[in-house]
């Protein structure tokens, strides 16, 4: 299976990863190899296997609705690049 340059460019945009022009050829090869592996998996006969949502055959444990977290804003904001009035500041986003 091959992956096109446009696919790579699209995936890069979706993942917010900058891909330089000269990297594309190498990525075409690497991602193509990964897709080949998936193709091999797809060849397996799974008719008698129920689709699963998780590799572990287990059930999710649920938590009681009780507040267990304290306010640790100061600690978290100590590593934030910019804060003001308790808010995290990010480059301006326009909806």
């Amino acid at each position, binding site marked *: 299976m091959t992956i096109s340059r446009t696919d790579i460019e699209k995936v890069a945009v979706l993942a917010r990863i900058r891909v330089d022009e000269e990297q594309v050829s190498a990525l075409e090869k690497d991602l193509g190899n990964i897709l080949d592996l998936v193709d091999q998996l797809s060849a397996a006969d799974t008719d008698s296997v129920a689709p699963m949502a998780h590799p572990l055959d287990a059930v999710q444990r649920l938590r009681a609705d009780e507040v267990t977290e304290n306010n640790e804003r100061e600690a978290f904001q100590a590593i934030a690049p910019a804060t003001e009035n308790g808010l*995290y500041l990010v480059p301006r986003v326009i909806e």
Partner: protein
Amino acid sequence: MQWDIVIGLEIHVQLATKTKIFSGSSTAYGAEPNTQANAVDLAMPGTLPVPNEQAFRYAVMFGLAVNAEIERRSVFERKNYFYPDLPKGYQTTQLERPIVGPGYVDIDLANGETKRVRIHHAHLEEDAGKSLHEDFHGMTGIDLNRAGTPLIEVVTEPDMTNADEAVAFAKKLHGIVTSLGICDGDMSQGSMRFDVNISLKPKGSDTLGTRTETKNLNSFRFMEQAIAHEVERQMDILEDGGAIVQETRLYNGDRDESRSMRTKEEANDYRYFPCPDLLPVEIDDAFIDEAHNSLPELPDARKVRFKEQYGLNDYDAGLLAGDSQLAAFFEAAADRGKDAKLASNWVQGEFSARLNAEEKPVADSPISGEQLGDLVVRIADNTISSAGAKKVFEALWTGENDSVDAIIDAKGLKQVSDTGELEKMVDEVLASMPDQVAQYQQESDPKKQKKMLGGFMGPLMKASKGQGNPKLFNEILVKKLGG
């Protein structure tokens, strides 16, 4: 050209849990920014989500209330997109196996008919944080207190055909979730938010047109306006021979205008996949039975009871039963007032008008149902006139005094209902107005006569200093003039 309007709704309902859906952070509204945003909510590396059992209980209660199938094994998916109020870079939601399957809600239409609106499904997911676009030195402020608040997103089938039906459904759903106690229903705080999908098709056509989605409407009034606005916009485009672009739009209620929100096509490529951090959640019959047993009275059942217990008509019963707080207020007023019809009129009239004018929920009313009941007692036993009752209501509302009888005394609003005293006043007034009396007696049309009675009421109310019982005055007048 004639068009059919097709409307479907997506409603985000914030669940009234104490903590977030995947962490033990508080969900209390109004805290200082980011004081309720902890490691899991901030997507710190190495953290793992643990789902809140109460969110599942509430979702199951909702499913049972809308006659839906409950999914015994539900799965969480990741919906991937980048936005700074979503620290993980994906929203944890449900796509393939939502907790609540197909169901329905019946709504009352203005013409007295009932219409069934089908629910496609409802799923559990997490809310995002809030972006504050005020200028912070050219940057945007992010408050993640809301990030991770549990939501159920209710998705309807496109069963509504006009704004009235959509609003009726929205109000019905509001009544259901607040009656269940799974949502506080405070729309001004974003506890319920509506997305409206609208498309038009030529009248009678079977093929659906291209739809648009108008997002994040947070009041019934804005929803109604946004639908009218969008229908008109699409109609203009289609009648000019244009095509509708499938897109998300934002409606500005203050300006009654809308604009396109997302234009980049890749913005909608969410690349859903099962969340590897969460195992499938299994719910057993005992859990569902327990939720079933904890269901309170719902609006439909309450409406039937109001008709039987209080003798209300269909319209009044439906309106009062639709909102759990209003229903409780009415019941308190009717039980204390002993006159359900009068209590119903006051709750829907003066009381609701006043709440609306001050944009207050019933919970913030300065007067109680019992107080209104006391007022109803005094209107019903003719102690005060309806004009006097309005003055008492005003004094209760502004907190001048909290006792109906004390207000009546203090303001001298007690009506004179002593017939002897009233007859004397009528005699005096009639003696002073011989021309009008003669006119009345010469008039043969009873309708006109009835009108002419009003001419005597002014002087009578003046003579009694506004305290004469108007109903008795009227009876005495007719008797004396007619003879």
